[in-house]
């Protein structure tokens, strides 16, 4: 089966702009928001969302990276992964609204690990989840608050998000 592009550059940009507005709307402003991206592409998306939100609301938005490798429950099923740096913005996350950002939501296991990782860093007042692509097949009771695009997929298919900063191209593809 061939690979087809389901989101082009303009689609990704529109989806992120909409998510930025939705985050502002549900939070009633940019107050107290901390965006935490899950490496690698979640961090890129979180930075873009932070820039969009601060453009719209005209205030700086805290953004960081949250590595979940050490909190995963499936480490023994894969070759050893190297953790990636975690960067928590200077103000910390205590009492803040943390918006987790990732590229693809699939089984939900990364997000479960992320919730554990957050717990070891502090106690936010709320945790939300923003996702560029929701491809279904959840294995845990986790759902996103902000979704760029729902893409129904077969469990065996591969959904690939490619971003300019990380991959030199900008598209979301699905294929066997």
């Amino acid at each position, binding site marked *: 089966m061939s690979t087809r592009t389901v989101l082009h550059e303009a689609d990704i940009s529109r989806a992120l702009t909409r998510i930025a507005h939705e985050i502002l709307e549900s939070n009633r402003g940019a107050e107290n928001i901390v965006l935490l991206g899950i490496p690698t592409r979640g961090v890129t998306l979180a930075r873009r969302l932070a820039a969009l939100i601060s453009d719209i609301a005209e205030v700086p938005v805290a953004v960081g990276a949250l590595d979940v490798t050490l909190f995963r429950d499936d480490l023994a*099923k*894969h070759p*050893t*992964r*190297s*953790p*990636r740096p975690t960067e928590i913005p200077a103000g910390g996350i205590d009492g803040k609204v943390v918006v987790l950002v990732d590229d693809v939501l699939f089984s939900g296991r990364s997000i479960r690990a992320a919730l554990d990782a957050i717990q*070891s860093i502090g106690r936010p007042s709320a945790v939300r989840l923003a996702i560029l692509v929701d491809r279904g097949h959840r294995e845990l009771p986790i759902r996103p608050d902000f979704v760029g695009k729902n893409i129904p997929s077969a469990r065996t298919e591969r959904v690939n998000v490619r971003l300019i900063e990380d991959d030199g191209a900008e598209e979301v593809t699905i294929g066997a």
Partner: protein
Amino acid sequence: MRHLLDTHTLDRTTALRILDVAEDMADTQSREVKKLPTLRGKTVVNLFFEDSTRTRISFEAAAKRLSADVINFAAKGSSVSKGESLKDTAQTLEAIGADAVVVRHPASGAPQTLATSGWISAGVVNAGDGTHEHPTQALLDAFTIRKRRFGAESRGRDLAGVRVVIVGDVLHSRVARSNVWLLATLGAEVTLVAPPTLVPQNVSLWPARVVYDLDAALAEGPDAVMMLRIQLERMSAAYFPTEREYSRRWGLDALRVAGLPDGSIVMHPGPMNRGLEISSEAADSARSTVLEQVANGVSVRMAVLYLLLAGERDDERGGDL
């Protein structure tokens, strides 16, 4: 990574991977909750046939921070002959269900035997064997040098061009051996300074320069000065006339420290013989990284245990380091 037995056969990529993972582990140690769930359900056995305080508690802290279960097995004083006792002990550990064995042994090569004998399936970490190697000490020393030099920009960097002087009892020192191999692999220039009686015979094969005059070596302005402990317990003969003479010629005192360029660091693997190889002024000066080395030791050992135990077990079959 299946075992960590030495730094002699450790390649640059693997060494940098351990140091980079150690950076991530160090970051987690400044958090509110330091404990990670990563190695939950794994069992780490500390098998120590020789006295050790800091290495054992460092490995214990590292394993516990990663949520592994730790069993301390102090085998000192065993009356069984070495080969047999090691085999019996190994089989006991296998029966207990050890996933990793951290072993310190007075006989050089004991960890290698444990890893390759087929007695156990656990990963083996050498925590010091005789006068052979002490790989995690060298890794934490390299980590400390890199951290002092590059700070937050340490990840991915090697030690190219860094000049390190290692001073003292090179003959009996497994720390010196592990450091020479690792530092050379990472691109550092190593100079050994020792009394002629404490220089090993085969030193010409090592990737290091040997000089006998400490002041001449320090005059070159090294980036790091690593003092070795005088190992009185391993000395069966008179290697130098008196402790006072040793201290005067090869000890690091306040005057020698003052002559070092800005940014040079003073290292010691501990435990220190204050007043013998290092003076209190030198050990407690701002250049001294002694306590940083201890803290970094936990991060480096967390990284080693993580790389040994976290991934799929048969992904790097037989890939001894």
